[in-house]
């Protein structure tokens, strides 16, 4: 037995013994997701147990080094762990912006002290982070951001506002882009970290077309931030942000790149019924769903190839933009078909039968996929310039 085969056998046995049955059920709604943090309330004992066991094993962040709370797994081992978790339908023990975004930034740009301190907290699910990037006047043109940190010697005094801060009202700390040099556009931004309980921080949820409020406006009114709480170098936060956006795109490109997307036609054949030939009983919708299935299965292969190449340094550094573009457009298309397949049932907004309008709200939510983390149009700009090397602007 090779080392990897032995590892797979170990992982399989560990999961079998440690993943509670409730944690092998598909995630049904937001409540089922474990975000961790100071104020997080576990939905049930199984969710808590699963987190604790994974924390102990380093499996909340399997590919991080052990001193920072990870399991120190190689890319191949990480892939095997994910495959084995997927095989039994195991839920993610912990989801967080700390794992997806701040963690990778700290791993690359953080000091040893920062890594030990912040990464361990993230890995254990103790601190829930939010991201302060966009501002009301700085969306796609993020580098024009105006939130300003005034240098007061041993600390900055931060004033300004951020928008689209996901779950800012539930987060413990924020990683935030703050202008520290007004004369220098790209090299005048610092990547700061501070507590959301700091005096002067307020959040206001934004009601979206889905009727939900996962995003906030966040205001900073004379917030004092010690001049030790930054990542990378002062005024070089844009480098960190650019690096992080790559990771965000990797993440948004679809949780395992379409891996959890099942055949949509198979799903709806049950509710729409089949004709005498065993075909979904709506030929044009069947054709559209089948064409979509082809694209989903193709994108899954792309996701596998992208991850294989990304983790081994073979991928073009800008290729996560392509993944994000293709993946988000695909997810929007999926939800259009979910609405068509559901017919008038899917229009229901608050009935029990519709689980509180889950399909309609979910469909509306996906419209943000191709806006957040860089719009599809920005992704295409980046591909055109950095990968295809097309001229101009």
């Amino acid at each position, binding site marked *: 037995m090779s080392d990897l085969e032995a590892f797979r056998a170990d992982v399989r046995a560990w999961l079998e013994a440690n993943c509670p049955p409730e944690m092998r059920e598909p995630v049904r709604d937001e409540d089922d997701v474990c975000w961790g943090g100071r104020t997080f309330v576990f939905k049930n004992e199984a969710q808590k147990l699963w987190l604790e066991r994974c924390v102990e094993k380093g499996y909340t962040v399997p590919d991080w080094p052990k001193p920072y709370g990870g399991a120190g797994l190689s890319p191949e081992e990480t892939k095997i762990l994910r495959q084995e978790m997927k095989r039994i339908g195991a839920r993610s023990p912990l989801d967080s912006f700390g794992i997806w975004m701040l963690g990778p930034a700290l791993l690359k740009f953080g000091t040893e002290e920062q890594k030990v301190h912040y990464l361990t907290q993230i890995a254990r699910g103790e601190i829930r982070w939010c991201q302060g990037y966009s501002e009301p006047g700085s969306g796609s043109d993020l580098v024009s951001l105006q939130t300003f940190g005034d240098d007061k010697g041993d600390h900055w005094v931060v004033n300004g506002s951020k928008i689209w801060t996901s779950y800012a009202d539930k987060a413990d700390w924020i990683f935030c882009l703050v202008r520290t040099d007004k004369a220098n556009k790209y090299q005048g931004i610092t990547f700061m970290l501070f507590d959301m309980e700091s005096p002067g921080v307020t959040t206001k949820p934004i009601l979206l077309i889905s009727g939900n409020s996962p995003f906030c406006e966040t205001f900073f009114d004379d917030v004092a931030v010690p001049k030790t709480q930054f990542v990378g170098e002062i005024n070089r936060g844009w480098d960190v942000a650019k690096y992080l956006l790559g990771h965000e795109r990797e993440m948004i490109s679809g949780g395992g790149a379409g891996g959890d997307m099942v*055949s949509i*036609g*198979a799903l*709806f*054949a049950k509710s729409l019924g*089949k004709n005498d030939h*065993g*075909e*979904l009983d709506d030929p044009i919708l*069947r*054709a559209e*769903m*089948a*064409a979509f*299935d*082809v*694209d989903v*299965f*193709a*994108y899954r*292969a*792309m996701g*596998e*190839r*992208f991850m*294989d*190449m990304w983790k*081994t340094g*073979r991928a073009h550094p800008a*290729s996560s933009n*392509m993944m994000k*573009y*293709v993946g988000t457009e695909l997810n929007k298309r999926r939800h259009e078909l979910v609405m068509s397949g559901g017919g008038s049932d899917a229009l229901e907004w608050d009935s029990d039968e519709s689980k509180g309008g889950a399909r309609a709200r979910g469909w509306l939510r996906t419209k943000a996929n191709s806006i957040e983390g860089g719009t599809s*149009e920005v*992704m*295409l*700009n980046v*591909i*055109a*310039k950095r*990968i*295809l*090397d*097309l*001229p*101009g*602007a």
Partner: protein
Amino acid sequence: MPLYHNDDQAMLKDSVAPFVAEQAPVSHLRKLRDEADATGFSRDLWAQFTEMGLPGMLVPEAHGGLGMGHMEAGIVLEEIGRNLTPSPFLATSVGAVAALAHAGGTQAGRWLSAIASGEAIVALAIDEGAKHRPERIATTATRAGNGFRLDGKKSFVVHGHVADMSIVSAKTDGGITLFAVPRDAKGLTADPRRLVDSSLASHVTLDGVEVDADAVIGEVDAGEDVLNALLAATRTGAAAEMVGVGQGAMDMTVNYLKERKQFGKLIGEFQGLQHRAAHLYGEMEVARATVMKAQQLLDEGSEGARLMVSVAKAKAGRAANLAVREGVQMHGGIGMTDEYDIGLYMKRDRALAEYMGDVHYHIDQVARMNGY
């Protein structure tokens, strides 16, 4: 296995890519076309392929081949696609070899080594109508004497008029059976037609063709598995070739965007074109990954291969088609001229798209395999 080429495969690509580009660039296709070549490919070039061992890539080593996999064959096919090289490689070295190796027996012993040595060209006589419907077979094989008598008509038989042997699917009493029909069989006629991409494909008539019992590839009535092996290999190969066609068209087009000026600017500066080129890039990358996944599953003998092969043929079909359409459009007026190569890519894509099932056929297959 990671979904990228390993070191050996990368080395293979490094030797095959310049070889095909130097020996058989698009001008090679033009030359054959302009000389109204009656064979459909260059035998000299096939001899060069043979020197490199390429015809026998998929042939097991016991039969004198290299015993490689679909991932490796795909590397060759992509270069064939990129250079629009007319070649018997896909039908002979991929489709026929897959069927013969799967079936084993007398015909495998007779033909596999001949393919590996470059001596035998094999045609796949599978289709009967204008659309690919391999499961609907009207051609019959009836027992006669010590063997069978074949009657029927086949279409879109690439290299059918020059093949040393044709693999013919026919209905038998208890199922379907594949036969190896040699070129000199009495009652076998091939009527070659020049297609839009300058290739030659034949309408083949089997009029009371008598073959021995040992002409059966595999077992009588048990041809479905062999046929499926042939189809999976040929479809995956065609998809790989389409990735080459699409990539070639895309590269040529992106280069053109960096050269052509209008309104005092390079046209590649216009966002209207940049976004379309970037979208195409994404589609081509996804198609490439999908084809590699199908190759990998086929090489592993995985049960999931069948689904992925149809996904690959459909996805590569969509992506390559987009590449050639955008290619002609972005070249503007000169894209419509015979002098520029981009139109040749469009023609080759159209023929490959139809070969072994078009996008619509395979989308339908994906629906069926998913139970709807």
